[in-house]
C-alpha cells in the first residue's frame, strides 16, 4: 500500500467511495464560511494518521484547515527504562514476550544492547507474540522457563491482559510488566500544559472509544470548548469527522459527535471496563519524552501481585528523561509540536529499516507513517 503516488491513491479513494468529492466540497464550503480563520484538527490515533497520510487527505484540505498528528502511539511513549530492565532479564535467561511493535523499541540513552531485538541477536531470550493469549500458551508449553510479558498499549489492549488475570488463567511462570497508558488524561494534559499547540477540533480514537465509551470525551467540549468527533478509520469516516468539526465551528456550537456508530457506544464495552477496573489501578505515569501525566498509567492491583513483573524484578518508573535519545524529536512529534520532517534525523539517521527514535519504530508512530508514505508527503510539501 505504501509508496504509491498521491494521484493514484486519491483516484483509488474516489472510485471506491463515490461520495468523497461531495464531502470534500462541503468541507471546502464550510471552511470558506469561516473566512480566514485557521482550524487545526488533531487526530489522536496513529491509525487515523495512517489513513490521512496514506490516502493523502491533507492534499484535499482547504488552506485554512490543518490536520495535526497527536499522541496516539503507545509504543512511542513507553518508557525506555522498561526496555532497559527487560533487556537485562532477557540476557539473564528470562524469556521476554513482546508485541512486534516494541521489539526494536530503543532502551535508554547509550544502552547496549539498545533494544530487545539486539538482545536477542546476542543470545537473549525474546519472543515476539501477536497477543497475550499467545504468550500464555507459549509459557504453558515452556513450563520450565520463567517468562515476562511486556504489556504495552492504551485502553484497547488492557482487556487482553485483564481477562486472563481476573480469571486466574495464567501459568505461574509468567508475569506481566504493565506499561499501559490511558488516553483521556494525555489529551487533558496536552490541552492544559502544551499551550503552543493550538487545537480547534479533535478526531478522537475509534477503538479506544469502543472500550471506554464516547462519553469519556465529553470533557473536551465541556472544559475546553473543542468540537470532538469519534471516528472510524476509513478515509470517508475521517473526512466526515473533519466535516463535522467544521460544522461545529461554523455554527459556533462545539459538540461531541460519534461518527463510528457501527462500533462505538456511549458507555463503551461494559464488561471490559469492569474487568480493567478490577485488575488495574490508575497511577501517575511517565510518558517518554513528555513527562509525568496525572492518572495516566495502570498497574496491577495488590491482589494480583503474584503476576506483577515490576514487583518480582524491581523494574520501576524513572521519570528522568534518560530515555530521550540525543537529537530525537519524538516527544515533540507525539505532542503535535513539530512535524517529522522538522527533525534533522528523519529519513537520514532514522529510517523504517534502521529506526533511531521510538516514533520510527512503531507502525503507529507518526515518523514511521510519514516515512512509509513518503510519496504522498513529498507531493504535499
Amino acid at each position, binding site marked *: 500500500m505504501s509508496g504509491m503516488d498521491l494521484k493514484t491513491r486519491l483516484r483509488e479513494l474516489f472510485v471506491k467511495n463515490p461520495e468523497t468529492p461531495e*464531502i470534500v466540497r462541503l468541507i471546502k464550503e464550510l471552511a470558506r464560511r469561516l473566512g480566514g480563520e485557521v482550524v487545526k484538527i488533531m487526530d489522536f490515533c496513529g491509525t487515523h494518521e495512517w489513513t490521512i497520510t496514506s490516502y493523502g487527505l491533507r492534499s484535499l484540505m482547504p488552506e485554512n484547515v490543518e490536520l495535526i498528528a497527536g499522541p496516539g502511539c503507545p509504543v512511542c511513549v513507553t518508557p525506555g527504562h522498561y526496555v532497559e530492565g527487560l533487556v537485562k532479564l532477557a540476557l539473564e535467561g528470562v524469556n521476554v514476550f513482546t508485541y512486534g511493535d516494541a521489539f526494536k523499541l530503543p532502551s535508554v540513552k547509550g544502552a547496549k544492547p539498545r533494544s530487545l531485538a539486539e538482545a536477542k541477536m546476542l543470545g537473549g531470550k525474546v519472543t515476539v507474540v501477536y497477543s497475550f493469549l499467545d504468550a500464555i500458551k507459549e509459557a504453558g508449553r515452556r513450563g520450565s522457563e520463567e517468562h515476562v510479558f511486556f504489556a504495552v498499549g492504551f485502553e484497547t489492549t488492557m482487556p487482553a491482559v485483564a481477562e486472563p488475570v481476573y480469571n486466574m488463567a495464567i501459568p505461574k511462570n509468567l508475569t506481566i510488566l504493565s506499561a499501559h497508558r490511558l488516553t483521556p488524561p494525555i489529551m487533558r494534559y496536552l490541552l492544559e500544559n502544551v499551550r503552543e499547540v493550538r487545537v480547534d477540533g479533535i478526531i478522537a480514537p475509534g477503538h479506544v472509544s469502543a472500550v471506554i465509551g464516547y462519553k469519556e470525551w465529553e470533557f473536551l467540549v465541556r472544559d475546553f470548548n473543542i468540537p470532538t468527533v469519534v471516528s472510524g478509520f476509513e478515509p470517508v469516516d475521517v473526512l466526515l469527522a473533519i466535516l463535522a468539526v467544521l460544522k461545529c465551528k461554523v455554527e459556533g456550537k462545539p459538540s461531541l459527535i460519534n461518527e463510528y456508530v457501527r462500533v462505538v457506544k456511549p458507555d463503551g464495552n461494559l464488561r471490559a471496563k469492569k474487568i480493567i477496573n478490577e485488575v488495574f489501578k490508575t497511577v501517575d505515569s511517565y510518558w517518554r519524552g513528555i513527562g509525568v501525566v496525572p492518572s495516566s498509567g495502570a498497574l496491577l492491583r495488590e491482589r494480583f501481585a503474584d503476576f506483577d513483573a515490576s514487583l518480582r524484578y524491581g523494574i520501576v518508573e524513572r521519570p528522568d528523561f534518560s530515555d530521550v535519545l540525543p537529537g530525537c524529536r519524538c516527544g515533540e512529534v507525539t505532542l503535535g509540536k513539530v512535524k517529522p520532517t522538522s527533525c534533522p534525523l528523519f529519513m537520514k539517521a532514522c529510517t523504517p529499516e534502521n529506526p533511531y527514535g521510538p516514533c520510527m519504530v512503531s507502525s503507529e508512530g507518526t515518523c514511521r507513517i510519514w516515512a512509509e508514505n513518503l510519496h504522498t508527503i513529498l507531493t504535499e510539501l
Partner: protein
Amino acid sequence: MCLGVPAKIVRKWGEGAITYAEVDLGGVTKEVIVATDEEVGVGDYVIVHAGIVISKISEDELEETLKLYKELSLEETS
C-alpha cells in the same frame, strides 16, 4: 499492535469464565478472547484488537454513516 481490524467469527467456545473465539482476519484465522458482553456468534463481524474482541460491528453501519452524512450536508445547504 495498536490496530483494530474487522474480523468474522468462525467458532466460539467457553473455558471457565472466559469466552474464546476463532476469527477470520481476511484469510488468516486466529484464536482470540471475547472481551465483550454483546451477543456475538458465528458469522458475526467484530473488531479484533491485540488478540481480543472489543466490539461487535452493527449491521446498519452504512445506514448510520449515511445518516450522519445527510445531517451534515442537509443543514449546510439550507
